[in-house]
C-alpha cells in the first residue's frame, strides 16, 4: 500500500513570535513559528488587520527564533534553532517574497537532544554575536560581522560548555559597545548526583551566570556567577549603554529581581496577585512571557503572568543605578507563548492555545487612579501586593487570528444534510474551549442586503473615470427596465446618469478615460463625460444578443451569429471595424481580456458558440476578426472570462521579460453542465493549452471578473458560488460559504474596497471576503471545560460531548468557596467596618469576570471538574448540560445498543474517574454512568451507575453487549437492572486500554504504550484472547480501522503508521492453560504468536488526535483524515494506479534533492524521526514544486519526461480528487 500525505490546513498554534524590520523597510513584520512552519505576518495599520506575507514549511521542529540586526544596520535577520543540529540565519527577500538561508552552521546530531544546542537562543543587542544553548551542558557563541560587500558573516563557534549543568534561560545583556555579555540561569547537579543522603540536592541553588565574549581574544569566559535564593524561570534583558542601566530582570516564582554586576544592589519586587483569588493557596506565580518596548527616551516591559495578567514594569534609576522596580497591573489577555510590542503601538499576543489577538495600546496606564507597586514599599516576608483584575482598559482589540490548536477530537460527518460532510472539531483548553463545525469555504461577510422592486436579471458596477478608486454607480437590469443607483454615503436611485432606464441592459461599463457605455437589445449608448450621448443602432430585424467590453474595445454579437467590433480611437470616439464576421452559429457568450498596461487593445476575443466550441478570435489590426484557435467542449459554454494571473506559465518563461514572467492569461469557461474549465491562453498564438476541469455545481456556471488584493480573480456562480484567485503564489478555487447567487459584479467603495455586489431573487447584496487563504469556514460554539471526546447520534444529529478539566472547580464548589471567602471577609473586619465589609463581600460574590480571558481559578492538584453536554447539531442549539460532581472526571463516551433491551433503546455510557491523580495514575474508583436517550435524544435519562476499580478509558459496543477498558483490563459488560454486569475479562494488556474498535467478531484494542492488539471473544469458553499484536510499542492516541485486518495508528510522538495482519492469520488461536505448548508456538516475550506487519510509516511531528477514514467531498473517494494537537488537518490518500505512484515517488525523490529545507534538516531523516518512513509520499514536499524556480522545475520535469505544466496539473488533480 502506498499513500500520499497532504495537509489540508496547516497548524494554527503559534510557538514563537518575534518582530523586526525583516524586509529592511520602516515597516515592522512579525515572524512566527508554528512548530514546523515559519510564517511572516504584516500588520496593516489602515485596516488594523494582520495578514500573512509568506508561509513556509521547514520540515524540522523549530525550537527557537530570534531577530538580529548588525550594528548600524536597518534590516533584521532571523536566527532559527531547530532539531536539525544546526543553526541557520535567514533573510527575508521582499521582492521575491521568499526566505533565503544565508548561513547554516552545524553543531551536533539531529533531534531534540539534551546536549545539542538549539533550545535557547540569545543575541547581543548590538548584533555582534549570538549564543545558542542546549538544555544541558553545551552553549556556543557565534560572532557576527560584515564583509566588504556588507553581507553578514559568521565566525566558527566558540564553546562555553559546562557539564552537569541544566540551563533554564539565556539572554543577551545590553552592555552597549563593551564586550558582548550573555546571562544564563543554570543549575549544577554534579554534587547532588554524588550525595546519597540527598543533602546536596536540597541545598542545590540556581545561579545567574554571566558569560563574556572577549572580542579581542576571540574567546568566551565565564565571567561571574552568583547563586540565587529561589529558582527562576526567565530572564529579561534591561536596555543598557546610553539607553538604560543595563542588567537583567530575573523572574522567580512570586518575585522579580533586578540584578547587575558591579556595585548594583539587588532590587526585589514581589509579583502582585489578584485580590480575592480562588486559586489554590499553595500555588506560586510565575511570569510566562515578556515584551520590551524601548524608545530613545524611555523603556518599559510588559510581562504576563500565568493567569494572563499583563504588568507594566518600569525601573527608576539614580545616577546609573537602579533604585526601584515599579510594577503596575496593565490588562488581562489570554496566556501567551510570545508577546510582541510593535513600534506602531500594537501588541501581538500569540496565545499558547486558542485564537491569537492583536491589540492596540490605547493608553500606557500612566495617568490613571490604579495603584502602582514598587520594590521600595515595605512588605513582610512572603507578603505581596494585591490588585483588582478588570476588563480591558489600556488595550483595544483590533484583530483576531483563528486557531484550532489544540484539536482534542474530531469527527467528520454530514449532520446538517448538506451533501458535503462537515468536520466537527472539539478544540481548545479550559474555559477557552470550543466545539467548531468546519466547512470548506471562504467566509463571507454581508455588508448590506436591500430589497428591489422585482427580480433583477443582472447587476454591474461602474466607475465614472478610469482612474477612480471607487465605483460610482450600481446598475441593475430587470426584465423591462434598468435601475441606476449611485454609491455614496447611502445608495440611492439617480436618473441623471445618462443610462437608458426604460430598457433592459445587456451590459454596461466604464470606457476610455471618462466615458460610460451601455449595451441594450437595440443598440449601444456611448455616454461621454459631458453627457453627450452617441448612439449606435442595431440593424433592423436584428438584436444584440451578447457583448464583451473592456476599457477600449467593444464587441457585440447580433442574432444569427454576426460579430461587430468597435474600438476607441485617440479622441475617445468608438469606431466600428469595417468588416463584420459571421460565426455560422449562435453566440452564447463572449469575453475580452483587459487591455494590458501601455497598449491600445487586447488581441484576443473568446467566443462561445452553440455548436459546443469556444473560438479565439484575433483583434489585431493585421488580421482582425480571423479565428486563431478553437476548443471543443463537452457541453455548451454558458459564460467566458479571460483573466490575467501571476506566476503560472512555464512554457515561455525563459523568453519573457520580468513583467511578462509574472502574469499569464487564463481563459475560464463555465459550462452549462456545471463544470468550470480553466485553460492557459498563449500570449502569442492564442492557442489554448493545459485545460483543467472542476465540477462546481448543478447549475450552469456564470463567470464574473472581480478584483482580489489588487489582482484579477474570477467569481463563478453555479448552485454554489466559487472564487478562483491567486493567493501567496498559489492558485485557489474555493467555494463561498453563502447562499446561491444569480449574478454578481465587483464592488469598490470606501467602506468595502474589494467587495462583491450580487443578486439573489429580489435582493441586492453587498458582500466582502475577509479571510482569504483560509481553507475552512468555522461555526463556533463555546464550551466550559477542555473537551475530551464526543459521540454523534446520527439518527437525530445530536452530539454528546464530555468536558473535563484538571485543577478545576465545578460551579457549585466555586460558589461555596466564594461564599466562604465572603464570610471570612466579614469576620475579619472590625465592628465599625462591618457594613463596609458586608458590602464588599456582596460585591465580591456578584462579580464575575469572563473566564475566556481571565482563566478559570486553578484548584489544587487532584481536583477535577467535568460536564456532559447535549448539542443539537441540526438546529444548532444546546439541549442540556449535566455537571458531574467535584473531582469526577469523564474520560470516555459511547453510544451503545444492548441486545437484551428493545432495539430502539440507545444508551449513552460515560466512563468517569473519581479523585484521579495523574502521575503515577491512581484513583479511588471509577464509575460508568448509563443514560438512556429519550425525546429523540434531546434528554438523557439516568439509569444507573456502575463502580469500577480503575479509570474507564474506552467504551465500545460489541455484539449487543459492551466492551469497556478499565485501567489495563478489558471487560465485556451486559446491562443489568441496577448496574452493568461484568461478563468476561482479560488482564493481558499491560498499561491502559485507550482505544477499542470492533469489526464483526474481531476486536481491536490499543494499549496506551504498547500499540494495537487483535482480539477475539470465544463464546464457548467465554474468553477474550489476543490472536495477534504489533511488533513495536507505540503510544497510541488515535486509531482507525481501514479494513478487516488493517489498522491506522497515530501516536503521541507524531508518527502515523498502518499495520496489517498478514494473509493466513488465524483468529482461532487456542489458549494454552497447561503451558505445555511448544516453545515455537508461543510468542516472543509473552507476545502473541502472530504479528502484524507495518505497511506504512510516516512522521508528522505533531501529536495525532484523531484518525478517520472518510470522504471529504461529495463523490470523492475515501481518504484517511487526521488532525493534530497543533491544529493541522491533513489526509493520507491512496494512488489510483501504479503509474501514479511511480510518478509521485520520483517527483518526491527529485524534490528531496532539489528543494533545500530552510532549517537544514534532511527531509527523509525528518520524516523518519522515530520509525523509518515507509510507503508514504510527502505531498507537502511535492507541492513545493510549483514554488521552485523555473529552471529547477524544468530540470525535474524533464527527468520525469513531462512538462512543468503537466507536473503541476497532476499535483492539483490528486488534491482535488479527494479534497480541496
Amino acid at each position, binding site marked *: 500500500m502506498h499513500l500520499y500525505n497532504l495537509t489540508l490546513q496547516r497548524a494554527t*498554534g503559534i*510557538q514563537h513570535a518575534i518582530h523586526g524590520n525583516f524586509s529592511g523597510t520602516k515597516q515592522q513584520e512579525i515572524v512566527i513559528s508554528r*512548530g514546523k512552519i515559519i510564517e511572516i505576518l504584516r500588520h496593516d495599520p489602515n485596516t488594523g488587520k494582520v495578514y500573512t506575507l509568506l508561509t513556509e514549511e521547514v520540515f524540522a*521542529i*523549530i*525550537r527557537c527564533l530570534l531577530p538580529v540586526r548588525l550594528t548600524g544596520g536597518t534590516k533584521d535577520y532571523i536566527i532559527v534553532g531547530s532539531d536539525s543540529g544546526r543553526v541557520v540565519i535567514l533573510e527575508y527577500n521582499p521582492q521575491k517574497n521568499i526566505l533565503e538561508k544565508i548561513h547554516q552552521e552545524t553543531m551536533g546530531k539531529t533531534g*531534540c*537532544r*539534551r*546536549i545539542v544546542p*538549539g*533550545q535557547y537562543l540569545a543575541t547581543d543587542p548590538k548584533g555582534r554575536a549570538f549564543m545558542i544553548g542546549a*538544555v*544541558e*551542558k553545551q552553549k556556543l557563541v557565534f560572532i557576527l560581522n560584515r564583509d566588504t560587500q556588507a553581507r553578514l558573516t559568521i565566525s566558527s563557534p566558540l564553546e562555553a560548555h559546562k*557539564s552537569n549543568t*541544566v540551563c533554564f534561560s539565556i539572554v543577551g545583556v545590553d552592555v552597549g559597545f563593551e564586550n558582548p555579555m550573555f546571562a544564563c540561569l543554570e*543549575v549544577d*547537579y554534579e554534587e*547532588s*548526583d*554524588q*550525595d*546519597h*543522603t*540527598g543533602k546536596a*540536592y536540597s541545598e*542545590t541553588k540556581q545561579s545567574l551566570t554571566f558569560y563574556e565574549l572577549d572580542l579581542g581574544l576571540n574567546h568566551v569566559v565565564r565571567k561571574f556567577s552568583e547563586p540565587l535564593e529561589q*529558582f527562576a*524561570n*526567565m530572564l529579561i534583558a534591561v536596555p543598557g549603554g546610553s539607553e538604560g542601566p543595563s542588567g537583567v530582570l530575573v523572574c522567580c516564582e512570586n518575585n522579580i529581581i533586578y540584578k547587575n554586576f558591579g556595585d548594583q544592589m539587588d532590587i526585589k519586587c514581589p509579583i502582585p496577585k489578584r485580590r480575592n483569588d480562588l486559586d489554590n493557596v499553595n500555588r506560586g506565580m*510565575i*511570569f*510566562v*512571557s515578556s515584551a520590551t518596548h524601548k524608545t530613545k527616551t524611555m523603556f518599559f516591559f510588559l510581562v504576563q503572568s*500565568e493567569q494572563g495578567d499583563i504588568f507594566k514594569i518600569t525601573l527608576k534609576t539614580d545616577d546609573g543605578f537602579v533604585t526601584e522596580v515599579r510594577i503596575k497591573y496593565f490588562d488581562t489577555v489570554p*496566556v501567551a507563548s510570545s508577546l510582541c510590542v510593535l513600534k506602531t503601538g500594537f501588541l501581538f499576543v500569540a496565545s*499558547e*492555545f486558542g485564537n491569537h489577538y492583536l491589540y492596540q495600546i490605547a493608553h500606557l496606564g500612566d495617568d490613571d487612579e490604579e495603584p502602582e507597586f514598587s520594590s521600595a514599599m515595605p512588605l513582610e516576608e512572603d507578603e505581596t501586593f494585591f490588585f483588582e483584575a478588570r476588563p480591558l482598559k489600556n488595550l483595544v482589540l483590533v484583530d483576531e487570528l483563528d486557531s484550532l*490548536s*489544540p484539536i*482534542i477530537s474530531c469527527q467528520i460527518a454530514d449532520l446538517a444534510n448538506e451533501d458535503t460532510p462537515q468536520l466537527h472539531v472539539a478544540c481548545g*483548553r*479550559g474555559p477557552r474551549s470550543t466545539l467548531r463545525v468546519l466547512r470548506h469555504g471562504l467566509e463571507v461577510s454581508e455588508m448590506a442586503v436591500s430589497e428591489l422592486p422585482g427580480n433583477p436579471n443582472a447587476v454591474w458596477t461602474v466607475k465614472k473615470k478610469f482612474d477612480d478608486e471607487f465605483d460610482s454607480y450600481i446598475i441593475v437590469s430587470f426584465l423591462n427596465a434598468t435601475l441606476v443607483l449611485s454609491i455614496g454615503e447611502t445608495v440611492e436611485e439617480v436618473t441623471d446618469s445618462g443610462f437608458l432606464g426604460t430598457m433592459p441592459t445587456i451590459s454596461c461599463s466604464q470606457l476610455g478615460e471618462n466615458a460610460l457605455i451601455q449595451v441594450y437589445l437595440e443598440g449601444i449608448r456611448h455616454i461621454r463625460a459631458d453627457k453627450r450621448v452617441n448612439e449606435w443602432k442595431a440593424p433592423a430585424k436584428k438584436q444584440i444578443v451578447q457583448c464583451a467590453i473592456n476599457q477600449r474595445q467593444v464587441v457585440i454579437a447580433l442574432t444569427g451569429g454576426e460579430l461587430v467590433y468597435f474600438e476607441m480611437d485617440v479622441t475617445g470616439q468608438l469606431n466600428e471595424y469595417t468588416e463584420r464576421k459571421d460565426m455560422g452559429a449562435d453566440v452564447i457568450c463572449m469575453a475580452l481580456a483587459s487591455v494590458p498596461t501601455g497598449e491600445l487593445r487586447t488581441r484576443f476575443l473568446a467566443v462561445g458558440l452553440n455548436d459546443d466550441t469556444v473560438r479565439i478570435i484575433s483583434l489585431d489590426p493585421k488580421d482582425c476578426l480571423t479565428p486563431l484557435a478553437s476548443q471543443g467542449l463537452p457541453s455548451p459554454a454558458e459564460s467566458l472570462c479571460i483573466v490575467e494571473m501571476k506566476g503560472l506559465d512555464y512554457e515561455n518563461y525563459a523568453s519573457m521579460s520580468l513583467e511578462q514572467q509574472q502574469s499569464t492569461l487564463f481563459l475560464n469557461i463555465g459550462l452549462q453542465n456545471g463544470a468550470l474549465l480553466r485553460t492557459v491562453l498563449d500570449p502569442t498564438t492564442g492557442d489554448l493549452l493545459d485545460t483543467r476541469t472542476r465540477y462546481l455545481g448543478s447549475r450552469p456556471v456564470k463567470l464574473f471578473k472581480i478584483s482580489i488584493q489588487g489582482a484579477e480573480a474570477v467569481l463563478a456562480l453555479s448552485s454554489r458560488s466559487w472564487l478562483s484567485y491567486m493567493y501567496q503564489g498559489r492558485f485557489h478555487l474555493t467555494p463561498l460559504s453563502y447562499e446561491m447567487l444569480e449574478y454578481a459584479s465587483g464592488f469598490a467603495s470606501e467602506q468595502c474596497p474589494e467587495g462583491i455586489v450580487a443578486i439573489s431573487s429580489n435582493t441586492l447584496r453587498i458582500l466582502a471576503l475577509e479571510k482569504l487563504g483560509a481553507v475552512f469556514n468555522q461555526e463556533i460554539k463555546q464550551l466550559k471545560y*477542555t473537551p475530551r471526546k464526543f459521540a454523534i447520534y446520527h439518527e437525530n444529529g445530536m452530539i454528546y460531548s464530555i468536558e473535563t*478539566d*484538571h*485543577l*478545576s472547580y465545578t460551579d457549585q464548589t466555586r460558589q461555596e468557596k466564594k461564599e466562604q471567602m465572603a464570610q471570612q471577609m466579614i469576620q475579619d473586619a472590625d465592628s465599625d467596618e462591618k457594613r463596609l465589609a458586608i458590602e464588599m463581600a456582596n460585591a465580591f460574590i456578584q462579580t464575575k469576570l469572563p473566564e475566556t480571558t481571565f482563566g478559570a481559578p*486553578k484548584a489544587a492538584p487532584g481536583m477535577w471538574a467535568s460536564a456532559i453536554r447535549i448539542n443539537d447539531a441540526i438546529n444548532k442549539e444546546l439541549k442540556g448540560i449535566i455537571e458531574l460532581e467535584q473531582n469526577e472526571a469523564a474520560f470516555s463516551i459511547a453510544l451503545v445498543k444492548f441486545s437484551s433491551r428493545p432495539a430502539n433503546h440507545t444508551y449513552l455510557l460515560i466512563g468517569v474517574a473519581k479523585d484521579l491523580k*495523574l502521575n503515577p495514575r491512581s484513583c479511588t474508583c471509577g464509575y460508568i454512568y448509563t443514560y438512556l436517550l429519550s425525546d429523540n435524544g434531546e434528554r438523557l435519562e439516568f439509569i444507573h451507575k456502575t463502580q469500577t476499580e480503575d479509570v474507564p478509558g474506552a467504551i465500545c459496543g460489541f455484539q449487543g453487549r459492551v466492551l469497556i477498558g478499565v485501567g489495563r483490563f478489558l471487560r465485556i459488560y451486559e446491562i443489568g437492572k441496577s448496574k452493568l454486569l461484568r461478563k468476561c475479562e482479560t488482564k493481558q494488556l499491560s498499561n491502559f486500554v485507550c482505544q477499542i474498535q470492533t469489526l464483526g467478531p474481531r476486536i481491536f484494542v490499543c494499549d496506551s504504550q504498547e500499540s494495537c492488539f487483535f482480539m477475539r471473544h470465544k463464546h464457548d469458553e467465554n474468553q477474550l484472547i489476543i490472536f495477534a499484536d504489533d511488533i513495536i510499542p507505540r503510544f497510541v492516541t488515535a486509531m482507525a480501522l481501514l479494513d478487516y485486518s488493517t489498522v491506522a495508528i497515530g501516536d*503521541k*510522538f*507524531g508518527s502515523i503508521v498502518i499495520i496489517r495482519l498478514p494473509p493466513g492469520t488465524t483468529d482461532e488461536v487456542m489458549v494454552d492453560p497447561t503451558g505445555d505448548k511448544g516453545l515455537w508456538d508461543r510468542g516472543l516475550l509473552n507476545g502473541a504468536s502472530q504479528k502484524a506487519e507495518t505497511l506504512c510509516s510516516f512522521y508528522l*511531528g*505533531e*501529536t495525532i488526535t484523531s484518525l478517520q477514514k472518510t470522504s471529504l467531498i461529495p463523490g470523492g473517494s475515501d481518504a484517511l483524515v487526521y488532525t*493534530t*494537537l*497543533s491544529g493541522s488537518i491533513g489526509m493520507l490518500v491512496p494512488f489510483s494506479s501504479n503509474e501514479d505512484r511511480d510518478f509521485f515517488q520520483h517527483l518526491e525523490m527529485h524534490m528531496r534533492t532539489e528543494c533545500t529545507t530552510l532549517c537544514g534538516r534532511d527531509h527523509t531523516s525528518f520524516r523518519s524521526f522515530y520509525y523509518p518512513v515507509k510507503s508514504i509520499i510527502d505531498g507537502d514536499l511535492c507541492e513545493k514544486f510549483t514554488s521552485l524556480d523555473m529552471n529547477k522545475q524544468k530540470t525535474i520535469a524533464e527527468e520525469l519526461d513531462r512538462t512543468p505544466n503537466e507536473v503541476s496539473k497532476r499535483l492539483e488533480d490528486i488534491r482535488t480528487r479527494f479534497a480541496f
Partner: protein
Amino acid sequence: MGERYNIHSQLEHLQSKYMGTGHSDTTKWEWLTNQHRDTMASFIGHYDLLNYLAVVENESKARLKFNYLKRMVQPCGPPPFKEDE
C-alpha cells in the same frame, strides 16, 4: 596511532562528549536518571509534546517547562549508597 583505536580511549572519548554514554559499571540509578533527563529534555524540545502535557495537566507551557527543568536536577531521587567509597 594504536592509542587512537584503543577501545577504552574511544569509549572514554564518547563518555566525555555525550552525556549518559554507558559503561560496564553503570548503575541502575545512573541509567534511570539519564533516561529521565533525556525524557524531560525531549518534552521541552518537542513543542507538541509540551502542548499535549499542558492540555493534560491544565498548566501553562512555561510552568511545565520550569517544572521539568527543575526535575532534571534530580529526577529519580538521590543516588544509592555506595559501600566501597
